[in-house]
């Protein structure tokens, strides 16, 4: 698409050449809820100048989407602008009749919604939906609209656009749908495009392609973009101007790089410190801070009190006592053994097979998929010949995009799925043959934590019952000792014991996830399988949970199998990284090796796609981190490995991690 056909924005000068395209002054938005009015946005000020990209960054509930939606008056029915003004192109549109706003929607202010899966009507062909947008804005009709639709789809980067326009949304992948939505948002050549988390539902490589494309497209057309995102790295990479929102207020706004490198407000500092994509290293646990070399040694010390607290429980039950004793004793012994092997390279041990707590050998899982005829299924290989080791007291991360088979691997390790071929060895024993008591013992020692904090706790169970359930199931202790254990576990995950009597619906996502961690730890497991355990959480909460997991690892000598799509998180928590693509392992090695010297094209692409990964954080070491000081300290600890000024440790010659994006 060339800019000659309809570059309305480019040719038509703004009424006031110097003035902002969008100007929001002292905006107040109030929601009327059954529990009284909620001030979702208070005194917000922001401007968007023609042609620039402004990003609003904030956690969920910060009011960022509400602010953006109020511009084209798309607030829910119980939401109202109760103060301040919104001026678009010099004209106050705060209280003009709805008809005038409608005229602006699409033609002047475009919208790219968040969820590409639900924002296209599944009953309509994609092309017809864009035709409709064109007709509604009086751009084109009939055959002309069809022609234009194809051009728009091509422009949005859809190959074979003519054919694609005739397809239904279910025939599109997530990325393709988002391209179609972008085409729709830009169909009438608006002067302002509001993109509300346009890529948060997409894989990182797709996200990068889409945002790159959106960048070039809006630059070419001179469209101003108001980008709403929770991802500070992404915002800094894509926008010239940043607006940080916190609890309904704008706490800081200014030029993107300036904010990133010299944040003033404590909340912004906190966000930057927590953003995994910006300045991250392997986290250092509370115990290990300042004494990195003794990492496994202090893990040793942490394991002992756990065994102690378990002792009264175990003695109450004769059968379980022996199991509990060995379970408590082995990690300490093995950790000590691995300590002897540990060389100067931190946690990564080159130890013997005895350290390997879980070994997957040539795992393959084939699912029968419904074929063209119902009685003949086509085999689908979800996991193809995957082998890896998990060493005691360390974290192995399995990274991949959606459909890479990483979660299937986790399910097989947990023995929730049986592998089609290959085996999983737990301390050298094949778990496939385990039955009865042996299986129960394995269940105690390998525990999962799942992604969705809203699905992981039974809503009918109180927190106490949730955490107590595993103890009760395994017949450990009596009511009194179980309660003591629940208190102890709540304390471990930094939640007040008063929370015991509450129910999951009263808790935030992060708190639920911490409860899930407490439940997983109730049986003193050795291995915890974290399946996207922090992916659904806000960045600060995610940071908190990651630190918690890391501290628990050092304290209890846990081994983590960490399944995630988020490479930035991997860098923070993992010792070894396994990169999966389409069911196969493409790269495998220590986290440092994978991040600093990726061998495979796919890994390189994944790394390059981390938003904000290429932004130099000049001030990263000097940031006063009031939450915790891990980032700065861990950097010192590993200063010899990596360039502290370059979060990715990027080789300047490496086109993927170099500063080419800035």
């Amino acid at each position, binding site marked *: 698409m060339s800019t000659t056909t309809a570059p309305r924005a480019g040719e038509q000068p703004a009424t006031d050449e110097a003035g902002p395209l969008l100007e929001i002054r002292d905006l107040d938005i109030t929601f009327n809820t059954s529990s009284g009015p909620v001030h979702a946005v208070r005194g917000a000020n922001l401007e968007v100048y023609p042609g620039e990209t402004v990003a609003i960054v904030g956690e969920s509930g910060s009011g960022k989407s509400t602010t953006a939606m109020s511009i084209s008056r798309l607030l829910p029915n119980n939401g109202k602008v109760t103060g301040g003004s919104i001026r678009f192109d010099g004209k106050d549109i705060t209280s003009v009749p709805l008809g005038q706003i409608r005229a602006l929607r699409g033609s002047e202010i475009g919208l790219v919604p968040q969820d590409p899966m639900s924002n296209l009507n599944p009953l309509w062909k994609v092309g017809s939906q864009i035709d409709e947008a064109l007709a509604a804005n009086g751009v084109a009709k009939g055959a002309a609209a069809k022609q234009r639709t194809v051009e728009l789809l091509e422009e949005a980067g859809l190959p074979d656009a003519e054919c694609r326009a005739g397809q239904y949304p279910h025939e599109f992948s997530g990325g393709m749908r988002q391209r179609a939505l972008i085409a729709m948002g830009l169909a009438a050549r608006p002067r302002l495009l509001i993109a509300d988390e346009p890529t948060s539902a997409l894989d990182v490589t797709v996200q990068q392609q889409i945002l790159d494309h959106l960048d070039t497209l809006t630059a070419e057309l001179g469209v101003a973009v108001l980008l709403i995102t929770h991802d500070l790295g992404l915002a800094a990479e894509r926008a*010239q101007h940043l607006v940080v929102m916190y609890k309904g207020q704008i*706490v800081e706004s200014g*030029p993107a790089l300036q904010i990133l490198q010299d944040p003033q407000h404590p909340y912004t500092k906190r966000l930057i410190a927590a953003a995994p994509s910006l300045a991250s290293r392997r986290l250092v646990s509370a115990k290990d801070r300042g004494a990195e070399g003794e990492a496994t040694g202090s893990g040793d010390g942490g394991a002992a009190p756990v065994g102690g607290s378990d002792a009264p429980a175990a003695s109450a039950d004769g059968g379980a006592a022996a199991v509990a004793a060995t379970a408590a004793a082995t990690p300490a012994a093995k950790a000590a053994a691995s300590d002897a092997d540990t060389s100067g390279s931190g946690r990564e041990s080159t130890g013997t097979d005895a350290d390997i707590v879980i070994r997957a050998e040539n795992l393959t899982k084939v699912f029968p998929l419904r074929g063209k005829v119902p009685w003949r299924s086509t085999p689908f290989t979800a996991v193809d010949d995957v082998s890896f080791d998990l060493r005691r007291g360390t974290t192995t991360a399995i990274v991949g995009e959606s459909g890479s088979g990483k979660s299937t691997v986790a399910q097989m390790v947990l023995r929730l799925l049986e592998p089609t071929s290959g085996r999983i060895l737990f301390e050298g024993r094949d778990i496939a043959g385990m039955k009865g008591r042996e299986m129960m013992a394995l269940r105690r020692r390998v525990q*999962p934590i799942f992604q969705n904090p809203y699905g992981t706790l*039974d809503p009918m169970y109180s927190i106490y019952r949730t955490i107590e359930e595993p103890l009760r*199931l395994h017949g450990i202790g009596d009511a009194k000792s179980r309660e003591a254990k629940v208190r102890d576990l709540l304390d471990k995950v930094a939640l*007040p014991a008063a929370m015991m009597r509450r129910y999951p619906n*009263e808790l935030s996502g992060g708190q639920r996830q911490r409860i899930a961690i407490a439940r997983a730890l109730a049986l003193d497991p050795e291995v915890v399988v974290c399946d996207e355990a922090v992916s659904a959480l806000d960045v*600060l909460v995610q940071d908190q949970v990651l630190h918690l997991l890391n501290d628990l690892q050092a304290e209890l000598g846990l081994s983590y199998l960490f399944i995630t799509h988020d490479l930035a998180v991997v860098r923070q928590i993992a010792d070894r990284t396994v990169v999966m693509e389409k069911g196969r392992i493409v790269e495998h090695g220590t986290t440092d090796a994978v991040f600093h010297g990726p061998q495979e094209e796919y890994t390189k692409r994944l790394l390059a796609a981390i938003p904000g990964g290429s932004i130099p954080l000049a001030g990263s070491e000097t940031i006063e981190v009031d939450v915790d000081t891990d980032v700065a300290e861990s950097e010192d600890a590993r200063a010899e490995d990596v360039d502290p000024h370059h979060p990715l440790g990027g080789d300047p010659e490496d086109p993927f991690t170099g500063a080419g994006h800035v």
Partner: protein
Amino acid sequence: MRSDQTARSLRPAAEHFVAPLDETPLQKVDAVDTTATPRSMWGEASHNLVRNPVFVISALLILLLLFVAAFPGVFTQYDPTKGDLSISNQPPGDGHLLGTTRQGYDVWARVLYGTRTSLTVGFFAMVISTVIGVVIGAFAGYVGGWVDEVLSRITEIFFALPLVLGAIVAFTALSNGVGTVTIALILALFGWTNIARITRGTVLSVKYQDFVTASTALGAGRLTNLAKHVLPNAIAPVIVTATVNLGVFIVAQSTLAYLGLGTGSVSWGGDISDAQPALRNNPMMLFYPSFALAICVLSFIMLGDAVRDALDPKARKR
């Protein structure tokens, strides 16, 4: 990143705004509200219920109906089964609050005693049908595979049989010796299908939730999971349907009694049937039992509605 020189120049000097700290005090990350009172799903539901006028009205009506069913003698001194032809077709008043029927029965007494028959049949039929429905639905949904296929087909066969028609056939086959519990059994036999279908559906949606998988990974067996996690989370819509079903069974019982298929005990359906020939001269004879029936059924359906609102996750705030 975009290097848009024109855009840069449009914005006046790159201002850097920082909100004063005291305006938005920084809170602890993910702070826990320790002051809130614990509230379980049922606690919250009952909290919502007592504030719902529909619930309060229907609950009061049902309590009144239950009391009447248990102690009808409190409200009248007449025996509803003793007709006195000498006082046939009396108008209201003169000791007979609502007058008498052609056979000389006291209408008020018959309306009161009819409550007992309706509620007993309705209640038993509801309990039996819910048990059958929940067991079949839960197994179909939870076990899946061929068990589901078989149970679902059986459910569909029963679903295709109209409740009243099936009951009429069953009655005719039994011919005599039909007691209250037998009617309830027959109604339940043809009325469990909607419970089974709803249970199957909710069980299917609950069984793949993470908390069930987590429980499996903790070592819980399949039946433990079904009883401890799946069923408790699937039961809410079943309760709603069962409440509405109770009303439906009361209507069905009255229909059968109207058609002359009854236990012989006093029943609104039978009275409606008896009042029909005298409809022109004495329409109120038909009105009283019909009104009682309508109030009774309406209260259960209203109750079901109110419970549905209280249990609906979308209606709940968090």
